[in-house]
């Protein structure tokens, strides 16, 4: 009989899809847990990982004085690269949180104001907000340069303080992200505010703030916020790698030299004198391995940023929480 067959096939397809989705969720949770562990490990370890740049072959205390060779070898002053790569990734959570807070708060305030959910702006008000956001969107690089240039004139600016300057750069990047997120918020809020179920909630006597939080922000804007935070992380990585690579090429007294910056590590890769530091253990890295590292970093960032990372975050936070 055809009908039960079709029904069973549909059921099987549905089951397979569900199973696939659960597998995705499991992988995503595992990767997310690994990332958290990596960051936590980095936070626990940094004090012990400090090494004296002046004394070659100095190793982090937690590695012990084994005298052996490390994965990825040593840099030109003899510091182990492997632990530094690990440490390099641990500097990002705080700028990420700081930047996310800035662009989310700014974007939500401007977006809700523009959507007319609370206050109906007049023509001039709408025009002012639109023009400011358009200017930021049209000339992001100029705005960033202005902000960074202003920061360098401040007394708290310090050359070589990578962590502090990275946080400042994250703030500048977050400000550039505000118009984008404000547009997302504005579009979503004005779209939802006209929907019947929101009207029904209003008729039930819910206040606008309650509606905004319970029926708009949590179900609709939080996933957008997480996705934007994910892409912000990628922008942050690109920016840090780019700036620290460029500044490490310029000289010692630059804004972004660091013993644990990814860009600095990358610049080390191009120095021929580093090759002599490699041992047999990291011989595979020596045979063009530094280029492999560079390609691997860029490829993984590209992959993460474009498709996979978005999928990961969506799976963990949206589907994972919904179907948990």
């Amino acid at each position, binding site marked *: 009989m055809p009908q039960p067959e079709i029904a069973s096939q549909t059921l099987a397809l549905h089951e397979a899809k569900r199973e696939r989705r659960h597998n995705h969720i499991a992988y995503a949770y595992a990767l997310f847990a690994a990332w958290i562990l990596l960051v936590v490990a980095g936070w626990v370890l940094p004090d012990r990982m400090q090494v004296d740049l002046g004394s070659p072959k100095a190793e982090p205390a937690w590695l012990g004085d084994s005298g052996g060779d490390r994965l990825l070898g040593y840099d030109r002053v003899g510091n182990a690269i492997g632990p530094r790569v690990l440490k390099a990734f641990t500097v990002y959570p705080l700028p990420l949180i700081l930047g996310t807070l800035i662009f989310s708060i700014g974007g939500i305030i401007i977006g809700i104001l523009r959507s007319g959910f609370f206050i*109906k702006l007049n023509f001039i008000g709408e025009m002012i907000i639109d023009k400011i956001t358009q200017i930021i969107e049209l000339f992001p690089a100029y705005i960033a340069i202005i902000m960074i240039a202003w920061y360098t004139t401040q007394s708290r600016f310090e050359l070589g303080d990578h962590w502090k300057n990275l946080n400042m750069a994250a703030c500048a990047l977050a400000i550039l992200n505000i118009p984008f997120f404000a547009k997302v918020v504005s579009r979503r809020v004005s779209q939802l*505010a*006209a*929907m*019947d*179920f929101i*009207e*029904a*909630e*209003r*008729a*039930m*006597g*819910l*206040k606008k703030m309650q509606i905004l939080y319970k*029926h708009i922000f949590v*179900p*609709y804007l939080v996933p957008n916020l997480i996705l934007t935070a994910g892409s912000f992380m990628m922008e942050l990585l690109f920016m840090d790698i780019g700036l620290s690579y460029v500044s490490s090429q310029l000289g010692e007294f630059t804004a972004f030299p660091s013993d644990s910056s990814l860009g600095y590590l990358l610049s080390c890769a191009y120095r021929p004198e580093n090759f002599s530091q490699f041992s047999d253990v990291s011989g595979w890295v020596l045979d063009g391995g530094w280029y492999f590292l560079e390609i691997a970093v860029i490829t993984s960032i590209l992959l993460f940023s474009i498709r996979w990372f978005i999928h990961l975050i969506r799976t963990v936070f949206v589907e994972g929480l919904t179907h948990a």
Partner: protein
Amino acid sequence: MPEQNPYFEAKSLSAGVYNRNRGRVFHFFRNVSFKIDKDEVVGLVGESGSGKTRLGLSLFGLLRDGPGLYSGSLNFSLSDTPKIHFDFGDPHSSSGLRRGLQPVLGRRMGLIMQGAKSALNPYQTIGTQLKDTLQLAGCPASDLSNVSEQLYKAFSLSSKQDSISNRYPFALSGGQAHRVMIALGFAMGPDLLIADEPTTGVDSPIQALILQHFKAFRSGELGPRRQEGRPRPSMLFITHQIDLMKGLTDRVMVMYCGELLEVCKTRDLGHLPHHPYTERLLEIALETGGRRHLHSIPQIAGRMPVMYDPPKGCVFADRCSMVKEHCWKVKPELTTHEAGHQVACHERGGDDA
């Protein structure tokens, strides 16, 4: 006497939106005056596009586009609450009305919206939405599950095998969503309930069931327990099926092109010299119910006037079989013909009939 103490009263209420491109106002409804007394069910009937839903939404301050209500006044005198009065003189935003009604919305006034599927939150389960509504209406936590179960059972929404409470709105059929929406309206236990086409889009048995539930809700058998001394709920029942009025409503208001054409007691329907439009509605309801062939179902010839340019005379003139010369020129006012019967027609009990 209920006449001395109306729950709700609207006087000369008009609403519309200004179209900037055309430079004219699109009227939702014009000069609508009516009242709903304590313990009274009023039916509002009319064809699609006559402004019934807009009128219902405007009472909650939910007209979202344009100036909304621009003239007339509203009086709310719900029991145990201070009187609320709004006067719309100049162009006025309906947000002020919503702010003023905030204390009574949900607890004292409830709305059953048209389009059940879109009026349910797609991100919450039915159980969550029902419990939230009950809590909002002040239902004690101990009664939550009892009242929910009672509503599920009454609306045939749960059985031993399956419960609807864990489902999301997309997993409901159209009829189920409709019943859930009505259950949510009842769950609020309001003193004044406005039901916007609660029987549209459901089959006949469900329609009968819904009407029974409305009666049960009115008598206090369904929904949360009402406090001692609180009167039975009043309702404004909006529909386009005039045959549903009998047995449920006390009075009927007939609306056409944003104007009230007739107000009468439900028991007098069919026994009075009605407005020609009401007569046609009654005929159609009678003959459609008699299962005649589809091609022989009567229709009202012509179309409703565009609300940008309402006619100077009677709004029904171009579709009326009894139209006379002066119907095109002079607008008939809603005047009392007999006790409790008002008609806006020159030929049927109008002021100059």
